[in-house]
């Protein structure tokens, strides 16, 4: 005899529910302890003038948010973060998809090539950023040497406000490309031959096969890469802080996470940092919801 109980309109089994909660316990306690609890604190702290140095932690209502709405650096950091996303993600998507399509073909040394494209992913960012800082060095760096050989004017990569963010993006694309190639590649290899054969028999050319058959079948992965791309681009921090200290030339690489870091650790304004975190959270949440809406309409499912 299975005992059931009712909650709202649904019936549940006592035994199954108990087991479910039991096996969820590790996950739920981790989430509660290390994510929800700190998160609740962040929301509360965003309403205080918490400063470790000054020792204050008084409730000040929405003052932090009022300050942020007028702080040019904060407003700039939102813009910079969006620019980073908008430039990086399309480049990343197109390149990764292109490389994956090529790697899906029969090419010699495929394994070696595939591994090489993935190699930057497994390198600690501090190490690879160091190499790239050297590349970008205006004097002793190889990039300007190459430009010079080509007869072009030298560029102050990381210290010119017009190129600093772009330089970071180039590095970030290099560093993350392999990850997305891997995802696309596995998607492509998972596409059943029968679809492709059927299309070929119907007289479709390779371009049609790619755009009409493969791409739609790949759309869940495209969506996934896009979603993770947006989420991750709002989290970018390490390369920014390593390659362009203090938010870069004229704060041109000061993304939101960097702003939060600076507010908390350089200026000691934890309340303000918490408020900026809440804004960041709201933006990411909104973007994800929008993406979900779009995805519902355009992602093909088998």
């Amino acid at each position, binding site marked *: 005899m299975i005992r059931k109980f009712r909650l709202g309109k649904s019936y549940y089994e006592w035994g199954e529910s108990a087991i479910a909660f039991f096996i969820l316990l590790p996950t739920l306690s981790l989430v509660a302890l290390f994510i929800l609890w700190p998160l609740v604190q962040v929301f509360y702290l965003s309403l205080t003038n918490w400063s470790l140095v000054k020792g204050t932690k008084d409730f000040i209502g929405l003052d932090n948010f009022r300050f942020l709405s007028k702080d040019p650096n904060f407003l700039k950091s939102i813009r910079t973060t969006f620019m980073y996303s908008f430039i990086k993600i399309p480049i990343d998507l197109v390149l990764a998809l292109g490389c994956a399509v090529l790697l899906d073909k*029969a090419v010699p040394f495929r394994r070696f090539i595939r591994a090489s494209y993935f190699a930057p992913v497994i390198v600690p960012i501090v190490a690879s950023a160091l190499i790239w800082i050297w*590349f970008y060095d205006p004097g002793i760096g190889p990039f300007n040497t190459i430009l010079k050989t080509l007869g072009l004017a030298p560029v102050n990569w990381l210290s010119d406000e017009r190129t600093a963010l772009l330089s970071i993006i180039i590095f970030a694309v290099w560093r993350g490309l392999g990850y997305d190639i891997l995802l696309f590649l*596995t998607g492509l290899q998972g596409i059943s031959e029968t679809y492709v054969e059927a299309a070929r028999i119907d007289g479709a050319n390779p371009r049609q096969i790619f755009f009409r058959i493969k791409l739609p079948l790949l759309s869940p*992965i495209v969506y996934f890469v896009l979603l993770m791309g947006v989420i991750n681009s709002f989290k970018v921090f390490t390369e920014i802080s390593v390659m362009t200290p203090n938010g870069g030339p004229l704060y041109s690489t000061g993304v939101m996470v960097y702003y939060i870091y600076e507010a*908390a650790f350089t200026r000691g304004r934890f309340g303000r940092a918490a408020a900026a975190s809440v804004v960041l959270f709201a933006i990411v949440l909104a973007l994800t919801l929008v993406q979900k809406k779009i995805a519902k309409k355009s992602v093909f499912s088998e």
Partner: protein
Amino acid sequence: MSKPHKHNWAAFTALVAGLVVMIFPFVWMILSAFKSKADVYAYPPKWIPSGLNWENFARAFVMVPFARWFLNSLLVSAAMTFLQVGSAIFAAYAFSKMRFPFKGAIYLVVISTMLLPQILTIIPMFLLIAKLGLVDSYGGLILPELFSGFTILLLQQYFMAIPDDLMHAARIDGCGPLGCLRHVVIPNSGAAIATASFFSFLGHWRSYLWPLIVVNSTKLRTLPIGLKYLITESSNDYQVMMAASVMAIMPVLIAFVFTEKRFIRSITLSGLKA
């Protein structure tokens, strides 16, 4: 695509062009690891070292406990991967195959944690770890980063696709919910579990901000943190930093080249989608 014997040379050429860009930094790193200090600061820049300066490696090795950091990274990442994937299997199973109250709401909370940048919660998290007396310990290094919404999502998607008929059959044979997990879901999910482990390991291997804050003593540092300190410590000695980077990166790169085929296969089989 099954054209085993006909190589596509056009694709090959394009890929090799990209390859040059992708591995150029590594070539530069290796070349620079052998440079002398004079080579590093030479103008115009020198591409090829003037000789094989092995002492760069020796210096990096003497400066810091490299083997220890490497081992730390390896052990911590492996332990975290094991615990993370282990707990995620249970959670993913509950979310995909069991009925219990508030499932939708709990799932939403668990998955939406993926949206949170770590910087958001790092200070409260640190205070918590301190209250638990875990600052500067393996426990403090591991616990806060154990949970990953991504890992659960990945496994849950895969478990969903396991036909309910299989589950019913097992139930008729007398399996409870956990029996089904053990006898049906896990044996059928090798590829998905391998994929989840791969991504989980990768995430922990590269973890930076949290270890930087929570670890103080030299012997507990992981590779990325150790490298960061080495870079600060060797200030202008790029050749030493490069030698250190080579030692830190090469073993993993080589291991990856030899195992990547298996990873790609299992990721393909796991039918990754969101």
